[in-house]
């Protein structure tokens, strides 16, 4: 599998012009930026009244009571992952304000996920199995049991009428979404794409993770959240002026032997080649920082390629826990945050490395705009 939507060098490459985040640091991009730059740990004890998970701690979004955040209208049946995505898209549209030149019809949405809401799927099935009749279920909860519920609700809430896509890609989902979004722009299917990824914390997810987590990943903390990016074509020039970063290339590889090392090295080489950049151009590299041997191997490969200093310029993502589908999207956000703070040299390249222990790796190369 190859995510090969990176545009040929002659065509204009897409640019990120705005972004938003709902993260364990709180609701809003600014909370994420200040938290991640301060290296603040977000681990919190799980309230046993509220959760029945196997873990004692997790990295939860503080104060994310869905109906308080989004209001009581239209939220009765909304599940958590949908609420996260709807909130992040709301903030993105609000913060970018009138700068979005595309109409609602020309605005697409691409959302990365692992499997939608495992909790909603299990709850709905359980209700049908346990009820006196199999059809004694709440029909309003049925849409939540479908993977693309969150993306669909984002469009309904915010009146986005362009293509609406859900990409299930595990930890690399944020990069898969970005790649797909670039394709929508390149093919003229949309003028603006809201691209990102979301993951919720839930009892169901915690139990699933508990049973599949290998021994070397024991003690990993689960996190949650959503990050969304506004992607536009760099042409016309006003979009280029507003650009926070240019998406140079996105690549992915698979591995079968449990060791992501070789696949990651090949993926890094490919993304640099496709992006038309040299190793020395790379100013910062964000590692996914997965707990366990896959994460250790990732760091080895990246350090050998770029040196520890380049890796350390990117904030550590373990601070927000394993945010699964949202992880690569948060990594992009953390690089934009780091660039803003430490005045990255003009034209500096940042790399996102995403490693999933399910056998997939992906990388993205971004050129950071001079601020």
């Amino acid at each position, binding site marked *: 599998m190859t995510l090969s939507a990176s545009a040929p060098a002659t065509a204009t490459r897409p640019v990120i012009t705005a972004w938003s985040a709902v993260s364990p640091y709180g609701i809003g991009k600014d909370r994420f930026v200040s938290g991640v730059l301060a290296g603040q740990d977000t681990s919190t004890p799980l309230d046993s009244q509220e959760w029945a998970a196997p873990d004692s701690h997790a990295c939860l979004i503080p104060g994310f009571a869905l109906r308080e955040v989004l209001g*009581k*209208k*239209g*939220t*009765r049946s909304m599940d958590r992952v949908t609420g996260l995505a709807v909130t992040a898209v709301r903030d993105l549209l609000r913060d970018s304000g009138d700068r979005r030149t595309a109409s609602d019809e020309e605005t697409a949405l691409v959302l990365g996920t692992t499997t939608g809401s495992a909790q909603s799927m299990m709850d709905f099935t359980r209700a049908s199995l346990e*009820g*006196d*009749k199999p*059809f*004694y*279920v*709440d*029909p*309003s909860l049925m849409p939540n049991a479908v993977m693309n519920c969150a993306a669909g609700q984002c469009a309904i809430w915010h009146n986005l009428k362009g293509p609406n896509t859900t990409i299930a890609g595990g930890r690399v989902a944020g990069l898969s979404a970005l790649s797909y979004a670039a394709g929508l722009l390149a093919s003229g299917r949309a003028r603006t794409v809201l691209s990102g990824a979301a993951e919720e914390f839930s009892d169901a997810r915690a139990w699933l993770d508990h049973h599949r987590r290998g021994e070397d990943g024991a003690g990993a903390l689960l996190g949650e959240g959503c990050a969304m990016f506004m992607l536009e074509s760099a042409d016309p020039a006003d979009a280029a002026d507003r650009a926070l970063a240019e998406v140079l290339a996105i690549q992915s590889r698979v591995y079968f032997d449990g060791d992501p090392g070789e696949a990651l090295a090949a993926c890094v080489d490919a993304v640099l080649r496709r992006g038309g950049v040299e190793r020395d151009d790379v100013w910062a590299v964000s590692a996914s920082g997965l707990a366990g041997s896959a994460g250790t191997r990732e760091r080895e490969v990246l350090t050998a390629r770029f040196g520890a200093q380049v890796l350390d310029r990117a904030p550590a993502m373990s601070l927000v826990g394993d945010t699964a589908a949202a992880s690569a999207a948060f990594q992009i956000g953390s690089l934009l945050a780091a660039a803003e703070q430490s005045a990255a040299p003009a034209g500096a390249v940042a790399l996102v490395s995403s490693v999933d222990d399910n056998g997939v790796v992906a990388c993205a190369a971004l050129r950071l705009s001079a601020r």
Partner: protein
Amino acid sequence: MTTAIDTDSQTRIKEIVCDVLELEEDEVTDSSLFKEDHGADSLRAIEILAGLEKEFKVTIEQSELERMVNLDGVYAVVGEALAAQK
């Protein structure tokens, strides 16, 4: 035919309807119309029907939705469904 139902059942029905329509209980009267006055659509109507079936352990035909336009209509339909079970 109208079959009266007790006050407790009426209270419970009102709770279910208000929950589905995302309304406070003082916003609804026995005769205010779900669709015209409270902006309900057909999906909401099905949700009310399903909620009532589950709560009262009855089966309500979808054709009854035509009568379930306000609380009075719902009381009548649920009353008949309960009576039919006895």
